[in-house]
């Protein structure tokens, strides 16, 4: 479902990764590993289309990326003055998919905080909201950048559940530094250099 052909990304005059060939097919869970600064997030952003590759190309399943692709990254900010619920409603309207506000928020345990503006959320709550936004349209491809960071026990279990579901629908790619999280993958890609 996700194919990278000779993918390379250069920042300034330094290649973060190059000649990267990979194929992730439905039902697979890929973990992208590597020390800090090895390019996990960069690769994930490139796959998500947030960064343009310096060379090579990325193939995603047909269809509108807004609905076929879910991405949640650490350095992706939320709208400080929009409430949790408003985020989901906006996202639903923009991607023309069902907002499912109550269902999703109950699931990640943010229903009580639905009216809290994002700037008042705790780090873990922010991570949960981003997860919601990523899975809202039941995407075929789910890209998670360190989903477990700053999540508590129950949050981590939640991620496992979601991972299980996701592979029934499509594939999952996780960039992580967490030895526990690493275990939920069926495949690994090590960018360590």
């Amino acid at each position, binding site marked *: 479902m996700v194919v990278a052909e000779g993918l390379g990304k250069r920042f300034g005059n330094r290649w973060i990764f190059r000649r990267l060939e990979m194929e992730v097919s439905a039902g697979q869970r890929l973990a992208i590993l590597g020390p800090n600064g090895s390019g996990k997030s960069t690769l994930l952003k490139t796959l998500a289309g947030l960064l343009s590759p310096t060379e090579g190309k990325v193939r995603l399943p047909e269809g509108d990326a*807004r609905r076929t692709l879910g991405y949640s*990254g650490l350095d992706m*900010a939320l709208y*400080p003055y*929009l409430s949790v619920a*408003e985020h989901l409603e*906006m*996202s639903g309207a*923009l991607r023309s998919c069902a907002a499912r506000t109550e269902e999703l928020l109950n699931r990640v345990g943010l229903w009580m905080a639905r009216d809290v503006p994002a700037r008042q959320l705790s780090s873990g709550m922010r991570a949960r909201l981003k997860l919601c936004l990523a899975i809202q349209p039941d995407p075929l491809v789910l890209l998670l950048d360190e989903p477990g960071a700053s999540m508590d026990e129950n949050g981590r279990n939640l991620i496992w559940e979601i991972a299980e579901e996701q592979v029934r629908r499509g594939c999952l790619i996780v960039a992580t530094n967490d030895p526990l999280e690493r275990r939920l993958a069926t495949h690994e890609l090590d960018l360590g250099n």
Partner: protein
Amino acid sequence: MSSTSETRVWRDEVLAIFKKEVLSEFRGKTGLSTGVVFSLSTIVTVALALFNKNPNKMDLQDVCASLVWIILLFASLLTLPRSFLVEEEQGTGDLLRLLARPHAVFWGKVIFNLIQMWLLCLLVAVLFIGLTGIVVTEPLVLAACLFSGGASLVGAVTLCGAIASRAANRAALAGAISIPLVLFPTQWGVSGLREAFGSVVATGGNTAAIGLTAYALLSLGIGPWIYAAVWKQ
């Protein structure tokens, strides 16, 4: 998808962006206030400048015309680019790029800016006329010029804001690259306002209004496509 439902989808997306802008604006109050402060203080400055003068003395109308236009120009530069700059400053740009389509984003923000700008025009016009006591001989021309003038400013400045938003010194850069683009409608804006203030050297207020409208339509027409082109850079 049938065309009607297609249009409905577009409408919803644009509305979603628009709603977002409105909510953020009124909860976090950022853009407009600066514009208002500026226009207020400027107009008072001008009123001071024309202080104990009767502004209907010949060629003061012309000056008034240019002053009004300058105020609108600067106010727009202070206010309009923010809608795009803020996205990058607060780091929500990525989220937007994931969820939305460029045309929806552009139109949502443009509509918001249009409303902002027209309100500003109204404010400036009322205050200016009130404080300087200048006589408006042709209210219709005035209205037309402010309306189309505001729109053309919105078209150009919003786009420039979008283009500058990913750069290091966004705020200043946005101003720098939009001023020259909005400079030449100035000629129309000013001449239109002169006509409205019944200046003697007035040259065709309607042509001015037409010129401004054309400019507005053009910039608003091209804008979204250019934005769509740089959308994911």
